[in-house]
């Protein structure tokens, strides 16, 4: 299968501090890939670097086109939806406004309306809360809104940063079930960053492991799951 996203020799800097040294990976079209690693390994930075939200060096190719010099808001127009950590919603806007602004770059009104209905079929609870301010939603609902917001873009690739963070286990299971459906039904490719490695390895077909800004191993999830070091460090048994 051809790669949708190819990352090669990616470096990233916060001021003088280098956060990524040499990150490279491929994401196949239509697949789910996960980035694992301890705190500070550079998982979030990798996602931010793909969207050019930090100073970067190296190449990022999306659908064959080099996007590493593009501004964040132009990368979004190539239908890469980034759900940042800590729930990417506009807390002072209503649920409705959050969904409308998410489709800001789209000009096909009929498509946007259809998207909305589809989003509500995944997240019926959001429809009940449509006029509520996003900041007043529960943590789980805000994460659902963040994913719904990303879907409104009709993305080809979704970057998800710790969707399970701070949520009750039952909600996490629900959200991951929805992510799988989104991948299968909407053909959205997903790059998932997750602290919860067991969960991530169940969902993803392929896994990359980051350590201090470098990729130290990668392979199919089933292989990575059974690696002794990974089991000890990230899965805890």
């Amino acid at each position: 299968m051809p790669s949708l996203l190819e990352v090669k020799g990616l470096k990233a800097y916060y001021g003088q501090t280098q956060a990524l040294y040499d990150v490279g990976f491929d994401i196949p079209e239509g697949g789910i890939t996960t980035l694992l690693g301890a705190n500070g390994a550079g998982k979030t930075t990798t996602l931010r670097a793909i969207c050019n939200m930090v100073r970067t060096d190296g190449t990022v190719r999306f659908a064959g086109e080099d996007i590493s010099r593009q501004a964040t808001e132009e990368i979004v127009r190539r239908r890469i939806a980034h759900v940042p950590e800590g729930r990417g919603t506009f807390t002072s806007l209503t649920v409705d406004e959050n969904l409308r602004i998410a489709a800001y770059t789209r000009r096909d009104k009929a498509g946007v309306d259809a998207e909305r209905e589809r989003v509500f079929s995944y997240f019926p609870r959001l429809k009940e809360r449509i006029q509520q301010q996003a900041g007043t939603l529960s943590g789980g609902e805000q994460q659902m809104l963040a994913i719904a917001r990303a879907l409104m873009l009709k993305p080809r690739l979704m970057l998800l940063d710790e969707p399970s963070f701070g949520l009750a286990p039952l909600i996490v299971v629900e959200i991951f079930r929805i992510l799988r459906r989104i991948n299968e039904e909407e053909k959205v490719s997903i790059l998932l960053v997750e602290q919860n490695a067991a969960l991530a390895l169940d969902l993803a077909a392929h896994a990359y492991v980051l350590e201090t800004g470098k990729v130290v191993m990668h392979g199919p999830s089933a292989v990575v799951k059974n690696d002794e070091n990974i089991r000890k460090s990230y899965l805890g048994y």
Partner: protein
Amino acid sequence: MEQFLQQLASGLANGAIYACVALALVMIYVSTDHLNFAQGEMAMFSTYISWQLMQWGLGFWLAFILAVLISFCMGVFIERVILRPLHHAPVLSIVVVFIGLLAICNSMAGAIWSYLIKEYPSPFPKAEFGIAGVIGPHQLGVVLVTLIVLSLLFAFFRYTPLGLAMRAAAQNPQMARLVGVRVDWMLALGWGLAAAVGAVAGIMVAHIVYLDPNMMGGILLYAFASALIGGIGNPGGAVVGGFIVGVLENMVAYSGNMIEKITGIYIIGNGEKLTVALIIVIFVLTLKPAGLFGRVVVKRV
């Protein structure tokens, strides 16, 4: 009673002006966290432009619309050219730029049009407009025009995709970029709109205070007070705050006059109304530091 209504009406007319300038301040404040000290002088400059257009033979309303459009472009230009390079500059540098902008607008207006005080016409017909004994034609006109402009602005922010994008960019610029909003342009647009609203205020008030390069100085002070009393981050609050301050200052003078009439003792009058109004504003802010409609911002550390 008639005098009370007159004072109330003129308070509302002044308040409408303060509301516009306060809204201009708040529009820039919510998206950049800076108070534009030059807002008043920019509005004054716009008023001179409209005056110049009228000198060249244009009718009042045509000059009004053109001046507002020119002001919008000037606002966008100032943001793009002067403030854009300073996006990551420390606060004090930006304050200095604002003060510089204030001085430049002021002295340029003086240099081009001289410091002599000029009369400025009112577009509202004397006889048929206004309610006799209650509100004068110009006052009623000012209130109507500003209310129309403010409603248009609120509709723009509430119902259009661009307005929504501007609100999103102000609330969370990084997230706004992630949904594809060109945040830098939204800032420039915000500056343009603020300059345009300021121009409306300047043109409307010029008939009352006369046209001169220092005409907006006092008004900017009132507008600051209005924005603060309404909650500096809240556009609706700024507008309400403007009307509150406008009515308040006139009521202070009115009650002072009444006291003098009844008891014969002079306590406060027209000369002190600004002082007393500002004391009340300070008092309100002591009790409610976030303003009447502001939200208390809790910062996580």
